[in-house]
């Protein structure tokens, strides 16, 4: 991804349509805490900076509090900018702002992003709102059948298709349609299978260039994890860039192990007093450290 994060980019499946930063707000929201100052360390900082270095170029998104609003700037450079550089930014660097910290004013649609699909188990309901809104495409493209039959390999049931039907009333809901004619609500599946069905359908609909999957191991048993690893390897073979986050060493070893020859990188991340630190590792590094008695998940004093 040769771009800095653009908080104003439209995300792919959320329903109703949202900007990326609105989605993050939705995911982090506690009760009605809707203020965008969550972007700033301790909600008090005056500035925040996200930089991505790709080759010789540095792509940065900067947030700066100006009175009652947060300005958002985008800049490309050869050196990683500092927050002091904010004073030298020009109006053409401004890509949008948050007036009164609560609303979004998109100043300029810049930094075209690859088609990105973000998924985590918290977004299953939102995903289904979207899937339902494009149900004709889901069925007529064959996606519902493909996903149902694929997921059958993971459970002791034989699913033939997905359907959208009423459940004791007017409201329709999604079902897995079994070979003996029975239906099981998608909501009654295990959390792991439900998440996977949802993601696979969203993938079929969005066909993203980049898949971001947060907490990939959530609700998954080792059998599912192996299946996911194979699916991810297939996506990588198709040219999809896949970015996974995990706290599971099993998930890391299983998935990274299957795509080891595909330029896989593992990054250890830790947030330390508002600064996100990272360390790039190979799977071999992870294995060597494990042998030495160092689990990278708690290895930040060693690695960062």
């Amino acid at each position, binding site marked *: 991804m040769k771009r800095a994060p653009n908080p104003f980019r439209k995300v792919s499946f959320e329903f109703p349509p949202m900007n990326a930063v609105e989605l993050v707000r939705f995911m982090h929201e506690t009760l009605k805490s809707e203020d965008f100052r969550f972007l700033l360390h301790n909600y008090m900082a005056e500035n925040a900076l996200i930089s991505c270095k790709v080759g010789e170029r540095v792509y940065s998104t900067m947030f700066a509090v100006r009175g009652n609003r947060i300005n958002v700037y985008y800049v490309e450079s050869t050196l990683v900018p500092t927050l002091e550089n904010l004073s030298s930014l020009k109006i053409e660097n401004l890509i949008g702002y948050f007036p009164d910290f609560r609303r979004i004013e998109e100043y300029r649609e810049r930094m075209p992003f690859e088609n990105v699909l973000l998924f985590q188990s918290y977004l299953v309901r939102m995903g289904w709102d979207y899937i339902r809104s494009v149900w004709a495409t889901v069925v007529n493209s064959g996606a519902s059948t493909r996903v149902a039959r694929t997921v059958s390999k993971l459970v002791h049931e034989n699913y033939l298709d997905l359907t959208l039907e009423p459940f004791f009333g007017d409201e329709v809901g999604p079902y897995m349609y079994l070979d003996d004619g029975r239906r099981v609500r998608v909501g009654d599946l295990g959390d792991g299978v439900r998440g996977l069905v949802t993601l696979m359908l969203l993938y079929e609909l969005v066909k993203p260039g980049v898949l971001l999957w947060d907490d990939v191991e959530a609700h998954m048993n080792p059998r599912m994890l192996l299946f996911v690893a194979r699916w991810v390897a297939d996506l990588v073979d198709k040219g999809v860039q896949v970015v996974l986050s995990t706290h599971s060493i099993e998930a890391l070893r299983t998935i990274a192990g299957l795509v080891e020859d595909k330029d896989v990188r593992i990054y250890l991340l830790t947030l330390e007093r508002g600064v996100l630190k990272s360390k790039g590792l190979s799977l071999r590094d992870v294995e060597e450290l*494990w*042998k*030495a*008695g*160092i*689990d990278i998940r*708690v*290895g930040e*004093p*060693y690695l960062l």
Partner: protein
Amino acid sequence: MKLYPFMTVDSVVRHIVRVSRWLGFDVLVSVVEELRCFIVIGDGTPEDEILALIAYHLNGVGKVIGIAKPEFVGIKVFELIPMYLVQKVGSILVLIDQEDYDVEVLIKEVEERLRGHGIAIESRGNKGRLVVYDCERGGRRFRLIVINGLDEIPFERHMVEDHLLKAAKILLGEQIDDVFSKSRDAKEAWKKLYQYREDIYRKLRNDKSF
């Protein structure tokens, strides 16, 4: 002294937590700012349990020490020493059993493995079964300390259990002589004293001089 475990799912950590809970202290930390020392556990239990007690008694020092339990056991752990030379780590303590080696042979093996991994030994100090090396690797100087067993425990093979048997002898007196005479090594003797384990640990906790 507090301990930062680099393996949270390993039995070493479970044992430290278990002993700490028995004895009513907490020596583990979840976050560490700066790492200056590593303890490498070359063999598993009861090294880990003893470590918890030592850490408790050195509580006032306030330093945090990383502990690692490699997949390798015994003398092979010395092959991993370069991996622990990170950040400001200037001391590495290795706990190993003597196994079937003569002490001099063990020391020779240790030194060969260190040299084989590009570590120059600048000086060596022996005090019984405690060996202290001042080392250098790639311009980096560090101290390596190797510990195992006590000579006064009457077994051919020496190991960390020697220290616990010495404590058991002081606490329980002649009643454990039979255990000594009927055991092949300190590990076996310590296993036979399983029922006294908690009492011995409690005594070690309550009496620093002991």
